[in-house]
């Protein structure tokens, strides 16, 4: 028996298949302007006849007709992160259009969470916009900023930060220094935000940026608490959805 979890995020749609012990398969697609298409396409890629239950999550969670249940990304991220690393007690997720911090108790249940949502500052979108101005591909970011000195980027607003960077470029500033400055800026902001919760135990870092070591280490530097990621970090929401789905089926069978 398998369960399927699909996380329809603002930038990417992720899916994971769970067999009760391990994640057997994952898939990812960019979320198109028609998120229903993306989530349905991902469902078609991953679904097979062994799938007993499907849980959808993320902003587009209501769009999948085949889903047996919809659960919010807060609950799913928490469950997925705790599955990937049971030693953690909090999750920091930098998503495409929001940023969230989730606090767990010792039983790995969600006890508190906060979301920023009013503005693109502190989200994946911020970094995307900045990298576009620098004409650099985000997938090489770790190498790109290696050995550089961070510039001070002070603007909180995505639009103002953009003009700040344009004027730094005009002054002939080094692009790697600027990029590292941007990373510092977003990580500093995220850590202030997350510290509104009473963080004490280890942190799991999820979302698309978690696959880059520079974001993990910078965030850890600001938070002063061990920050963990996993190669499957970006799939945390989808994995959580699949795990919750599995528990549901098991519970009803007993």
């Amino acid at each position, binding site marked *: 028996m398998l369960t399927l979890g699909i996380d329809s995020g603002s930038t990417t749609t992720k899916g994971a298949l769970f067999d009760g012990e391990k994640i057997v398969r994952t898939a990812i697609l960019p979320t198109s302007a028609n998120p229903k298409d993306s989530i349905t396409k991902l469902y078609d890629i991953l679904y097979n006849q062994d799938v007993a239950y499907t849980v959808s999550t993320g902003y587009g969670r209501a769009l999948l007709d085949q889903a047996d249940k919809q659960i919010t*990304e807060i609950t799913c991220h928490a469950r997925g992160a705790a599955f990937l690393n049971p030693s953690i007690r909090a999750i920091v997720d930098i998503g495409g259009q929001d940023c969230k911090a989730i606090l767990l108790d010792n039983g790995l249940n969600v006890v508190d969470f906060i979301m920023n949502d009013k503005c693109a500052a502190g989200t994946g979108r911020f970094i995307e916009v900045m990298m576009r101005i620098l004409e650099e591909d985000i997938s090489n970011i770790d190498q790109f900023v290696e050995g550089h000195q961070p510039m001070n980027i002070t603007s909180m607003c995505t639009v103002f930060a953009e003009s700040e960077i344009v004027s730094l470029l005009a002054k002939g500033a080094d692009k790697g220094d600027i990029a590292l400055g941007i990373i510092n800026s977003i990580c500093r902001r995220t850590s202030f935000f997350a510290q509104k919760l009473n963080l004490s135990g280890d942190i799991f870092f999820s979302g698309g940026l978690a696959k880059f070591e520079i974001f993990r280490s910078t965030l850890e530097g600001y938070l002063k608490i061990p920050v963990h990621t996993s190669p499957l970090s970006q799939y945390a929401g989808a994995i959580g959805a699949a795990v919750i789905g599995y528990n549901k089926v098991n519970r009803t069978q007993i």
Partner: protein
Amino acid sequence: MEIKKELPEVFNDFGEMRKKSFLAAYEMKQKNIPFVGTFCTYFPQELAMAMGACVVGLCSTSDETIPEAEKDLPRNLCPLIKSSYGFAKTDKCPYFYFSDLIVGETTCDGKKKMYEYLGQFKPVYTMELPNSQSPVALELWTKEVIKLKEKLESHFEVTITDEAVREQVKIMNNVRRALKEFYSLCKNEPVPMLGQDMFKILYGSTYKFDKANLAGEIHALTEKIQKEYEENPNKYPKAPRILVTGCPIGGGAEKCIKAIEDNGGHVVVFENCSGAKSCDREVDENNPDIYAAIAERYLSIGCSVMTPNPNRLELLDRLIDEYKVDAVVEVTLQACHTYNVETLGIKRFVNEKKGIPYMAVETDYSTADIGQLNTRMAAFIEML
């Protein structure tokens, strides 16, 4: 003085609903009933009622007039203040338009500064509300209550007798008791009505002007719901019981109540201006000094403009127990500094003293955040 009896020039441009409410107000004005416009639960209604005036709430809750208000006021200001000012400027609200006197209080910084501009094109009188509940503050506020009575007398050229005030105190106490009895229905589990329906009655009752008959009307409604509940106690399934606290939530911010109830929770009690905050305490009818009794009752309202603000915690403490509350949701309006700052203290109280979850959401009158509100409320309720 002559009270305002004509319809505004822009009347013919209005939609049907708005025309209707203008005409209802117009008819009252033809009967020579003066309108006193107010913004806040701190306004001692009994005084204006004692001279036969109709007390109308002017707190506006729609983003329709905000662009007009932002021509004069900062954008980063509470939407309630901007919306209200905008309605005053555009003559789009019948109560604003027909108000013969508008009474504000020095409550929050945004409102008291807004009143200065409002006073330049509307007849505004501002009461000096102290920002603490000390004996000295009560002394000042008692004087302000008497000054208000004198202002009403001179402005409308009437005499307000102590007997008339005392009579209105009894009427308003009856209304408070009836509303309290009504919302107490939700002490039952499962609930006999949804929070969104309860809120409509609570909020709507502030726009019922025949206060003498209001208590009876509410009482009849309470009995009807009670009877239906006895016949069918399981109309609504059991669900996590939510207390809503924070800023005034009429109109645009009602989306928060809906988001809670659409995502599996039930709002069982409101600790807001149109809920328990304004019904919980009565004026002492037996106090020989009726003005002192009024001052004492109104000053003890637990609004975040007070420092310190122990009465809010006292009321929350009681409501959480009496309504068997599973979690607290605080709804604040953007740039409402006093409520936004107070969220930390409320969170600590709710988490640590009462041992239940708490979440704060900051919102405005737009519909831009409905998707995010739904996600937050759903996640919060999944957590319970």
